[in-house]
């Protein structure tokens, strides 16, 4: 019994920490319609880890994290720099192509690794069951630093999102934004997998964005509903022995569907 209490304590602590920053960044991503950007970074983190496996660096070791970080920084740079001026090409298309290329690179790597197919699946699905207190500690420390950074410079980032009074050196702020996203990606993808990391970012923020335009309130609503959905998913997964990541995402998805129904039934004045 104490084992399952311990399990839940670790999980809930991590989820609560992760969701704050993810919801906030997610609000940015949704406002700016850069939906794919997170998938690009997630997939690149996975690709970095796969390359690491190719170089005999054990999955989940510090070396593997460094490989992921390098891949993600490259991705953040590309995301910030590649901004088409052509009105016929939405920025999202370029981001989509980057995502496809990251995925393609991972699949081609998987072809040449023994048991590569299993690794590709693993990086998609993650295994949060491995979460331990040290991981929670490191994640919490990094998240707090990033939260402070984002709080201090919130004006610049919000200006980017709302398109009012663009900050000077727009590309630099873009790069910093994607780098933050990348750093949390590197931390979260080995435990949560590509899809769950993406869902943490997108779904709570999407729910919040449907109900409020204010940033602070949005983070609060997204965090609260997201955490509630994750707790339900976590319990279902644990007690009914269902796949961890997918169950959490489906639970978040159910909240999103409910929010859609509410929004359509009660149109905003």
């Amino acid at each position, binding site marked *: 019994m104490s084992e399952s209490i311990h399990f839940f304590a670790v999980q809930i602590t991590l989820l609560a920490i992760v969701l704050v920053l993810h919801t906030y960044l997610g609000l940015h991503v949704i406002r700016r319609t850069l939906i794919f950007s997170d998938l690009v970074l997630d997939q690149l983190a996975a690709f970095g880890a796969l390359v690491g496996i190719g170089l005999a660096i054990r999955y989940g070791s510090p070396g593997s994290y460094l490989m992921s970080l390098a891949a993600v920084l490259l991705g953040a740079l590309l995301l910030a720099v590649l901004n088409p001026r052509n009105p016929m090409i939405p920025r999202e*298309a370029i981001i989509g192509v980057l995502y496809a290329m990251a995925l393609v690179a991972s699949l081609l790597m998987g072809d040449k690794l023994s048991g590569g197919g299993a690794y590709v699946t693993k990086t998609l*699905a993650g295994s949060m069951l491995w979460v331990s207190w040290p991981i929670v500690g490191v994640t919490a420390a990094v998240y707090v630093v990033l939260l402070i950074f984002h709080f201090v410079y919130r004006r610049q980032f919000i200006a980017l999102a709302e398109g009012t009074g663009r900050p000077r050196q727009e590309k630099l702020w873009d790069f910093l934004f994607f780098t933050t996203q990348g750093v949390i990606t590197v931390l979260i993808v080995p435990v949560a997998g590509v899809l769950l990391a993406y869902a943490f970012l997108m*779904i709570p923020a999407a729910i919040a964005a449907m109900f409020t335009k204010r940033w602070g309130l949005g983070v609060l609503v997204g965090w609260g509903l997201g955490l509630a959905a994750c707790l339900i998913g976590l319990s279902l997964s644990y007690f009914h022995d*269902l796949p961890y990541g997918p169950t959490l995402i*489906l639970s978040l998805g159910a909240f999103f569907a409910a929010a859609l129904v509410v929004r359509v039934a009660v149109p905003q004045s």
Partner: protein
Amino acid sequence: MLHFVELLGLPFLVCVAMTAVLGYLGIHVLSREIVFVDIALAQIVAVGAIGAHLAFGVEGHSLLTYVASLALALGAAAFYALARRKVLQISQEAVIGVSYAIAAATALFLIGIAPGGHVHTQHMLAGSILWASWTDLLLCVVVFGAVGICFSVLRHPFQRISRDYDGAVRDGMKVVAWDFLFYALLGVVITFAVRIGGVVVVFAFLIIPATVSALFTGHVGKRLLITWGAGTLGALLGLLFAHRLDFSVGPAVALFLGVELALAGLWRRSSPSLAGAVAVVVSVGYVALLVAAPSPHGVSRSAPGVSAPPPTDVATAETAPAASDPSAELLPGSNERVTTASELAALFERTPDPETRRDIVLRALDVEPRCGAQLALRYLQGDPPLFFRQGVIDGLGEPLDWDVMQPFAASVNAEAAERLREKHRLDALPPPCQ
């Protein structure tokens, strides 16, 4: 040479059929800023196929699979058309993005509760163009042709809505109905294309050639020509590359489409001469790689794989690199291919590393299931790390009710092991690995 044409001709024609219709749709998708839609629809279609497989045990290309996939795609089309009109607080792309996450999670959820999951994942993403048959091609031509005719007849309203949604609403067009039709036709194309090509290649065909053409011109006719040219070229380069160097075809085709876009972007955004120089370097490198590559092995269209169901194809494709590339870690001290069950069993005894041992067990399961089951039990007895354990349990491919979180000695697993022993009659003579 003839062998080449025989092996790659059909996949190439399938790619051409795909680029013809997907390229055109891509131009619409770009102007509607719904880049995600195809990945989301493809994922939803895959959920239908996996669901049909789990519920009715049908294989990849059966009628029931298509019906299940199409039904889900139509449901999604209705949802997107309504959401575009009714959900005003967040962009259509965000709704599509969330629906993608949910569909992908559903697919993984279904796979996770089914055995042999990762084979499905790999197949869903990478596809199996190499194994396309004449029936596939015919199906593609008929379906894509029909959709193409619909689009050319209805091109005016579609283009109107693609360009200016709010204007169309003001003019009293029935946008929800038109949008439903648009997404439904897209869904039909994607259902068929993904079954053959996989998610990645379909996405690449949809987005990349259309983006390349937008770099050069705004005229629809010229854009179509550039789109089709870029798609065909990418398919050709990717097929040759994958064939010579033994990679999955789908990702390779997508890779070269990406290379084309990078070069086209360089051409338009910086200087043509720089782009030209890079293009020359890339093509010289490409040709050198093709020439220098060892001749391909193992894959032959005359093998039963031609019409075999996709999961089997993938199993072959997945094990092919391992078999052809006798990696040092798999065969310490020797460069020969280990093919028989007894050789694998002997190698298993000699190998200490849990990862290599897992690969040996998986190989043995392919070669000789009884021997594989025995090795799997011996392997699991040692309680290897969780992920390796999971790989072997997946590889057994049977609903054993094994609890991967518990050690081997736990009662639930002891019972599962007993079931496996009975099934393969492992206690009966002769020993299976001889």
